[in-house]
């Protein structure tokens, strides 16, 4: 049980971040976090709202992420297309997919509340509207950019799904608009899986909102509507996707995440993740947070190449991928494994079986390579 802290936890994380405004949690960040729940480093960086791209750059690792102007333009154009004419295309898809009887629908824009874009105001207004329509009093059908919250690693994350429809067949549906194409009814499975995970984050946040408001959760659909361009055109195409598996997995993973402030509490008082400070200062604070590097981090985490060099240095088997790691149970360094192979070190009892198998493999490799 972590010790009680002398000051509010938020302050500790905010002090680590420094004077810069925090980067918000997004559904994408949450799915990345749950993809690697063992990574304390990422948990703290995200909870403190540190700009990870800037941080990586400060310690000498320019992140290789970035969006192409072409991709950005395409995404905007497609979003615009779906939202054009008070979501006319979305309403068409809802009619097709969910047999909505109405020909048109009202849209409430929740990007702002009376000209104010403050998060808490938008969240309060979203909650009020959800409670209002859940009671069945309103004809309003689509909430544009509603704002929901979710507790992640002890922090409140503010989340904005593209749209939320209300009460179609008595159910609320989350809608996500993506610009990857569905060709002959099939989109890139990796992209769909990633979108489904993000949708699960929104649906879970919606559950929390219902719980808080004392509304019946049965009104929330476990399916979400994915809208993407059809074939090679710009025409929106929609399909409902079942989320039950993703929801179970997400709930489980969120419950496993350790509270970020408990992790941060283990850092020395002088630790800082302020990107304005010197590389040495930041580096030593980053190092004090345990990372759990795997090669898949390279595809989504800005700090991945920093962590990879660190993993190389301590010869972590995980850096070579799960295949190698699984073949080295109980052996925590590739250097140790190589020592067993060379016979310069003797494996302990727990490692003996794995080491024997490695030696048998190495022997066969030598023999059969020679045989050819």
């Amino acid at each position: 049980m972590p010790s009680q802290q002398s000051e509010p936890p938020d302050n500790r994380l905010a002090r680590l971040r420094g004077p810069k405004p925090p980067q918000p949690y997004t559904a994408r960040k949450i799915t990345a976090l749950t993809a690697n729940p063992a990574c304390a480093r990422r948990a703290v960086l995200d909870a403190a709202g540190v700009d990870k791209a800037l941080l990586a750059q400060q310690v000498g690792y320019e992140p290789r992420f970035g969006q192409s102007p072409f991709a950005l333009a395409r995404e905007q154009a497609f979003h615009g297309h779906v939202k054009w004419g008070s979501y006319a295309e979305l309403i068409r898809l809802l009619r097709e997919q969910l047999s909505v009887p109405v020909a048109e629908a009202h849209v409430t824009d929740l990007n702002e509340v009376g000209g104010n874009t403050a998060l808490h105001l938008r969240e309060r207004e979203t909650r009020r509207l959800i409670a209002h329509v859940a009671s069945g009093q309103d004809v309003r059908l689509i909430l544009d950019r509603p704002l929901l919250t979710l507790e992640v690693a002890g922090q409140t994350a503010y989340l904005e799904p593209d749209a939320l429809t209300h009460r179609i067949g008595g159910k609320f549906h989350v809608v996500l608009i993506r610009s990857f194409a569905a060709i002959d009814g099939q989109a890139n499975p990796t992209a769909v899986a990633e979108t489904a995970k993000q949708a699960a984050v929104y649906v879970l946040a919606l559950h929390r909102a219902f719980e808080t408001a004392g509304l019946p959760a049965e009104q929330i659909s476990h399916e979400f509507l994915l809208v993407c361009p059809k074939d090679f055109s710009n025409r929106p195409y929609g399909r409902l996707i079942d989320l039950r598996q993703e929801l179970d997995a997400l709930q489980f993973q969120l419950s496993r995440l350790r509270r970020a402030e408990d992790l941060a509490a283990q850092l020395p008082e002088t630790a800082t993740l302020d990107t304005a400070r010197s590389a040495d200062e930041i580096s030593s604070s980053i190092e004090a947070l345990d990372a759990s590097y795997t090669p898949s981090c390279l595809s989504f985490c800005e700090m991945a190449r920093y962590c990879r060099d660190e993993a190389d240095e301590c010869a972590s088997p995980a850096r070579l991928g799960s295949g190698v790691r699984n073949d080295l149970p109980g052996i925590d360094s590739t250097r140790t494994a190589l020592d067993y192979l060379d016979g310069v070190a003797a494996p302990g009892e727990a490692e003996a079986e794995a080491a024997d198998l490695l030696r048998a493999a190495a022997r066969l490799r030598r023999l059969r390579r020679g045989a050819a």
Partner: protein
Amino acid sequence: MSVLSTVATLTASRTGRAEPLTTVRHQHLDEKPFVLVPLTLAGEACAPLAALAGTDPEHPTLLTVRQPRNRAERFRFAERLAALLLAYIDGCRTETEPYTVGRGKEKEERLRCRRAPQLLVPNGEGISYVRLLGRLTRLRATEGPYAVDQSVPTLGKWLTWFADLAEFPDSGVLLAMTRLLAANWATGQSSSEDSHLASLLAWIDPPEGSDGARAAREAEDPAVWPPAGPSTDPVFDRTLHELMTRYDEASDGRGREAVGRQIDRELSGQMLPTWRLMWRGVELLRELPEGAHVPGRWALDRRWFSEYAEYLEADGRPQARRDQAVRAARRLARLEDAVTRYEAQRAYDDPLVMAEYELTGEAFTGTVTARDGDRFIPGERPGSQVWRPTITLRTGTDVRVDLAVGTEVKSPARPGQEARILEVRREDDGGHAVVLQLKGGFARKRTPPAPPGTLAEAGEELTYTTLNPTAMPSALPDEENTPWTHGGPPQSYEPTDEDAEETWE
């Protein structure tokens, strides 16, 4: 991933140089492969942007689309690619050879081409690109609104054919260079990093004075080694975006052409390093000897090729948007058979691959210590005797023999000979003595003595395994006899006008 490749990976991570995983090459590598390095416009579903293509390492043909948002320009790209690829395909059809299919009464003489096309792309995404470009072009109409050139749908059908076969591990008509290289070498990095062509080759073929580990890191810098495509580097895209805007806004034809040439140069610069890596990869793979089963698999590719070319001439309907159920089921069954057969053939051709099975206990190696060449046992008919010699194999002390008495095994040394394990004895020193009963493979002789070479000699080292490279494919009922539980068999695919009528916005 096997423990053997883990050992290879560990070794590579120490030496900084890739380690061989095979002793032979298991894919056919044509004398004249067609190399395709494609780029697409970010954010779009298969908007061809550029390609370097051809069969001459010194002279790639550069294809570019200066404004990919323009539909007509995309199809002009397809037309130019068709001109190159269809000519290459036609060149493979000039010579044919006879071959026989079936046995006994069903025996039939047919003709197949002596060559088949082989398309090489940098990586797995390159294969997806071929599939998508095939889908984009094969259903186009050649008359009416948005008509395209005749060659465009033909290109699409061929590209789809390539992509369909690429799923079969035993086919070599469309291959990704990263997969080819990673099948033969283990690097000291993860497999996801191996999908990056430049860093994979850095491990296998590091530049002088560097080691693979260091060179691979340097190869990750997109400013030095642009991505092998088809996705482009987002930073490069900013340059390209600016040029394309200038291209669109040019006030006259001369100005536009000048910017257009600059676009071409920039795109060519993004692809040339990959083009060179592709051919370096081809060179490295050529240095490996070819596995014994490779020519047989390529002959099968040549047969598929000949049959598809004939089909296109006779019928020519494009592949459907989606496979109908019967076709999909057959394809899946064929795919499973191909995987099993390919894995077994690889092990038979390559002692280093067989070692993986030795390690798991599905194969064992030993030395012949005794043989009984005059052994007879009672046959099926009452009173009959059949000739079934035995040999006894003695294994080393550290060899695993997990196979039970009664198991049917075969040896790569005499693949035509069936063997059955009669006895497994554990010896005092920890090794095993395995007695094997042999059947067939005696040059059609049914009585002793065994013709020279057909029965293993004492002292010979042999490997036996449960793998069988000649296992018969699984049988599926005919299409008309396929049971249907959901309203009868689906209709076969007929192209419709709607297929060609895709809105373009």
